[in-house]
Structures are given as structure tokens and as C-alpha cells.
């Protein structure tokens, strides 16, 4: 539909979260309105302390068709996972 407002992707940083997390998307005519709508749609239950909005059209995504070449090669590289180290008890939870 030509008169539909642009789509925005919404990222919220929670009370104790370190980073913004993608929570969904909504329609708004500009960034300012997107922030307001995000506040009303996604933070009604005290979920967030910060909101980022990004125009969905500005996001470049990897192509699903290239899934194989992009991600399969890392399947068998177990040595990339830090599971071969003994962690001293004193370090605590990591």
C-alpha cells in the first residue's frame, strides 16, 4: 500500500541489560514518532531504559541462500570455543 508509513525496527535496552535487543517492529512516519510508538508498544510493562529505532529499509541482511558458505564452515571448528581451558574456581561465574 503506497500510503503506509515506513517500517521501523525497535531495539530496547532492559533494566539490567548490557545491550539493546531487537523486540519487534512498527510503523511510524519518522524516527521521533517511532520512538514514541516504541515507548507505548514495547515499554508498557517497565521493560526498558533506552530505545533505539532503525528504519527497516536501512538494514542490510545476509542472504538466506548463502547460509551454507557463510555459516557451515564454523560447524566443525570446535577449537574456536573456549572449552579447552580449565578455569580456576576463584574466577567464579563467567
Amino acid at each position, binding site marked *: 500500500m503506497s500510503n503506509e*508509513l515506513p517500517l521501523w525496527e525497535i531495539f530496547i535496552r532492559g533494566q539490567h541489560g548490557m545491550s539493546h535487543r531487537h523486540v519487534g517492529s*512498527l*510503523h*511510524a*512516519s519518522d524516527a521521533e*514518532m517511532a520512538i*514514541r510508538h516504541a515507548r*507505548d508498544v514495547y515499554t*508498557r510493562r517497565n521493560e526498558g531504559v533506552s530505545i533505539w529505532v532503525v528504519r527497516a529499509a536501512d538494514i542490510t541482511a545476509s542472504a538466506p541462500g548463502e547460509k551454507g558458505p557463510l555459516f557451515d564452515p564454523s560447524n566443525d571448528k570446535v577449537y574456536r570455543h573456549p572449552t579447552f581451558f580449565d578455569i580456576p574456581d576463584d574466577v567464579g561465574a563467567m
Partner: protein
Amino acid sequence: MTRDEALFEFCLRLGDTTLILGHRVSEWCGHAPILEEDIALANTALDLIGETQMWLSLAGEIEGKGRNADDLAYLRDAWDFRNLLLVERPNGDFGRTVMRQFLYDAFASLMLAGLMKSADTRVAQIAAKASKEVAYHLERSADLVVRLGDGTAESHARMQAALDEHWPYALEMFVADDVDCVLAEVGIAPDPSTLRADWDALTGRVLSQATLDIPDSGFAHKGGKSGRHTEHLGHVLTEMQWLQRAYPGARW
């Protein structure tokens, strides 16, 4: 009129105004132009009903006859309501709803700022809590007034019509009576007529940005604050109070 009699009336005015406006705004639920607006309007309505709860509870406490907020909201008839006439106006189109909200929000933000300095701590506490919500309502409604006023020829015409229609009802907000004078004297509430200059400045800024012409009429409809309402309030109450009237004391 004693101090408490005046304060009881005053709390009813604040609580009834937020109750009726909250009900009006809630009528949009499921009908707003877009889903995002629908949720935003429902949030606003809930904020207003929450504020109502505080003012009517305090009214019941001051009255001292054992009536709680629900009794006051659901078991009084139109002539006992003290809400401003502006808020019982039908929603009309989305623009009319937004304009009504903006004119009220601008007033509420100034009134609450005054009430935060109230000599009565209960009033000051409620005002402090409500003022944050109202600050957001005002930001939202002012933004929409500008977007729609300075929008298309169609939206501009609708917003100008909305402003012209609401204006004489809005001016009731600034008409002070005995209740207001008693409370202003003891420092419980600001005299509403003293808020007019700031309201004019605030609304003037937004309306000029919205390219809308401010009506030059000073005529104000009166009556809401003393229980003389338009025919619309009865219809609102019929819907709002139906369940408690049909099934007295029903709970869930």
C-alpha cells in the same frame, strides 16, 4: 464553605475530568487509525483512569462518608459530576480527539505543576505522580497537533475545525469560582485563572507551529464544574455505569 468542602469539590473536579476523558479516549480502543495509535490511546486512557482513582479516593476520604473511588465513579448521576465540559465532548474524528487532548494536557500540566506545591501533602503527592504521565501525554498530543495541523489540506482543515469547536469549552478551565478562591487562599491549589497566561503561551507556540489560527473569541461555556452538563455526559455514564447499575455490587 469550609476548607474540606472546597477540597472535596476540587478533587471531584479533577477526578471526574480525568475519568470522563479517560472513558472518552478508551472509546478509541480497537478503532484508532493505526495499531500503534490504538495502543498509545489505550495507554493514555489507562493513565487517566489511574489518576482518577487517586483523586476520587482522596475525595471519598475527605468527604468521610465511607464512599470509595468506585462508589463515586459508578454510583453518582450526571448532576453530581464535576468534570469540565470539554472532556465530555464526543470524540469526533481522530483530529478532534487529539485537539481536545492537547488543550486539556496543556492545562493539566500547568495545574499539576501548581498542585505539586500544594499546602496539602496528599494533593502534592498525587500531583507529583500524575505530572510525569501528563508530561508525556502533552508531548504526544502537541506533536500530533503539529503533524496534523501542518499536514495535508484535509488534515489542516479538520484540525482548524476541531480547534474552533473546542475553544469555548476549553476556556471553562480558567473560570474560577468560590471553590477555587477558598483553596487558592490557603495555598492548596492555584487559582485556575492565573494559569491562563502560561496556557496561552504554551498552546500558542504549538498552534502556530501547526499553522492553525487561534479563535479570537473569549466566550466560555460554563457549568461542568458545578454539575450543569451537556447532553453528552448522560450517554457516557449510561455506558460506563451500566454494569454496576444492572448488577449492583458485582465484582470479578
